[in-house]
């Protein structure tokens, strides 16, 4: 087993002599203040407005009926059956996409970590899905792959059936029969490259001497992977999982384009439900309240992400 002892922490840099602390500090800050105020105005004021709106009953189609309702909208958010389904769907969607794309990304990263001719080309091609616009990717999956008439999946099925002498294969309506997997698959296709990139960076940061030592000690490839590579990758995996989660929780394009949240509300996630509340129901108060709840959830996840990044940096610095 390897026992890595952390090297002693570097001593903090010597403190600089300070000259007239107050005024100098502010002199340095003044040119930045407009930017700061601007940033606060464009990022925080809308949120404050959202908070305010979330305490009103406000349907824009019913002018004159807007009034303060306190926390009623939040009660609605937490008791509404559709929103509960949406929360559940969001969790299922996010967890499965993140998990699958991490596993696939890890596999691809391991392959790309080896030297072979055309590695650069392979890497570029593998990254490509991440660069496709989300709506375009969703349309591609909806029409080119899943369509029961002219989609690639049924086309392939039919060809295989014909090879074995049948007239025609079954016509599978992929989106209606497997709505959640259909959305998940398209997202996994998009997010695997992202995970692959992060994990590849992790693999390439792996110290070669440790691996060589393991080989010299006669460790099998599997054992090396389990006991050396995986622990080393742990933080990279955490980072990928957390960043991925933050983005995938907000998935809108794929749900809107491929399933429209259906059939029923089987693939309706929180962003899509909020969209419906805002633009079909025109209940601004409810939409704002749901938005606030989502932000709070996202902040919790983001805090974990930031901690992981911070610990990564600490480890890099201590190396």
């Amino acid at each position, binding site marked *: 087993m390897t026992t890595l002892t952390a090297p002693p922490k570097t001593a903090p840099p010597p403190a600089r002599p300070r000259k007239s602390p107050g005024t100098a500090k502010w002199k340095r800050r003044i040119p930045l203040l407009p930017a700061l105020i601007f940033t606060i105005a464009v*990022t925080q*004021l*809308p*949120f*404050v*407005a*959202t908070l305010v*709106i979330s305490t009103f009953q406000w*349907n*824009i*189609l*019913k*002018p004159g009926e807007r009034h303060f309702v306190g926390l009623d909208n939040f009660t609605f958010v937490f008791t509404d059956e*559709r929103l509960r389904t949406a929360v559940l769907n969001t969790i299922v969607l996010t967890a499965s996409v993140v998990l699958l794309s991490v596993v696939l990304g890890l596999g691809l990263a391991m392959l790309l970590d080896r030297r072979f001719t055309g590695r650069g080309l392979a890497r570029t091609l593998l990254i490509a899905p991440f660069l496709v616009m989300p709506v375009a990717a969703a349309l591609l999956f*909806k029409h080119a792959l899943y*369509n*029961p*008439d002219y989609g690639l999946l049924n086309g392939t099925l039919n060809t295989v059936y014909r090879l074995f002498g049948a007239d*025609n294969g079954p*016509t599978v*309506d992929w*989106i*209606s*029969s497997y*709505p959640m997997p259909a959305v998940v698959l398209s997202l996994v296709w998009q997010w695997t490259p992202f995970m692959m990139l992060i994990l590849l960076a992790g693999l390439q940061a792996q110290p070669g001497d440790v691996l060589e030592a393991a080989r010299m000690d006669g460790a099998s490839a599997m054992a090396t992977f389990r006991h050396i590579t995986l622990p080393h990758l742990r933080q990279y995996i955490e980072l990928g999982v957390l960043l991925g989660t*933050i*983005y995938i929780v*907000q998935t*809108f394009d794929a749900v809107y384009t491929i*399933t*429209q*949240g*259906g*059939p*029923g*509300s*089987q693939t309706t996630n*929180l*962003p899509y439900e*909020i969209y*419906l509340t*805002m*633009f*079909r*129901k*025109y209940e*601004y108060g409810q*939409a*704002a309240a749901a*938005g*606030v709840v*989502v*932000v709070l959830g*996202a*902040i919790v*996840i*983001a805090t974990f992400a930031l901690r992981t990044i911070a610990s990564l940096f600490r480890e890099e610095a201590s190396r």
Partner: protein
Amino acid sequence: MRSTRYALIAGAAATALLATACSGAGAGGSSGGSKSINVLMVGNPQMEDIAKLTKSTFTKDTGIKVNFTVLPENELRDKVTQDIATQAGQYDVATIGAYEVPIWTKNGWLHELGSYADKDTGFDKADLLKPMVQSLSGSDGKLYALPFYGESSMLMYNKDVMAAKGVTVPEHPTWQQIADIAARVDGAEPGMKGICLRGLAGWGELGAPLTSVVNTFGGTWFTKDWKAQVNSPAFKKATNFYVNLVRQHGEAGAPQAGFTECLNALSQKKAAMWYDATSAAGSLEDPASSKIAGHVGYAYAPTVQTKSSGWLWAWAWAMPKTTKNADAASKFMLWASSKKYENLVGAKLGWSRVPAGKRASTYAIPQYQKAAGSFGDITLKSIEQADPANPGVQPRPTVGIQYVAIPEFQDLGTKVTQEISAAIAGKTSVDKALDDGQKLAEDVAKNYQK
């Protein structure tokens, strides 16, 4: 930070609303006394035509410059609703549908237009089809929007397939006859289904044909005194019929199929019949996009208990109360809905592109009769027969055939059709879908019961 994106969108939209609401009073019409108007309209082919023709004709004659903003239907609804509801006053004219007119009129958002139409001697208001006028009027009986084009619904079918199978489609079919025919012609050609019906969730998608079927089966969303009827026996029977028909003989991928998908299915020979909007005929008869152009048969909307069951829809010009250019805007609207404009389109772009379905006189123009030979007559009669005030077997609380004209219906219709779409996908039962829908409808009804 992106993690807060959705809240920020909501927040930003809200602040924008607040800001526009505050500035609306002072900064409305950008053009003061100058002759320029802003028009917001839906991106349908007929609207794209008018955007092309305006400058060389209307602007040349009147000196009024028209700035068009063209958006797809859903975005248009979002935008126009917010613009008018918040009194932002950005637009002088907007296209809205028959659904919005009574609701917005009640809110006092629209200018009355009947008096403008009466003053214009060349406009001939009496020529407008009665159901159009009725569905674009407020509860005070005054006209609040001028129709640009109108549609009803009908059954369209592939004549060759029917001939090959020895089937005759009656001119006035019943739904049972259609179901029998669908079973007979299912699989007539490889990959061809018996019928295409919308299964895509949405109050304006699946909601439209389904509600017209519910009407003729004797069902309704609400009774006259606002009792929800979504899980009543008639509503259930109609929905079961619709769902079973689609599941047994409907198009592949039905839960995702809307107007466009069905148009493709019929025109690409993937379906033998299709029940939908009369305005689809123009596309079906276009050889550039349709494999069955010239081989399409048309029949009236199938019925069960009612005499007719076609729906009624109009895209119409409305003028928000906030406009400062009422005179110029009314001139534009009167021109766009006039006989003169129809003739202009016919002469310049071809007679099949005339925005039809609003005037009786359109169907007397010989050139139009020739261009719309096979479907013009059925379209006109379907519109004339449509009775938006009384489309079913019982009195209704609102005017409208394939929708309920209350603000809550966009949401209610969308959610209930989501469940029915799931039933078409086999993910839930019709009974469960409608029982859930009944609860939603009861909540809505509470706002109206006295």
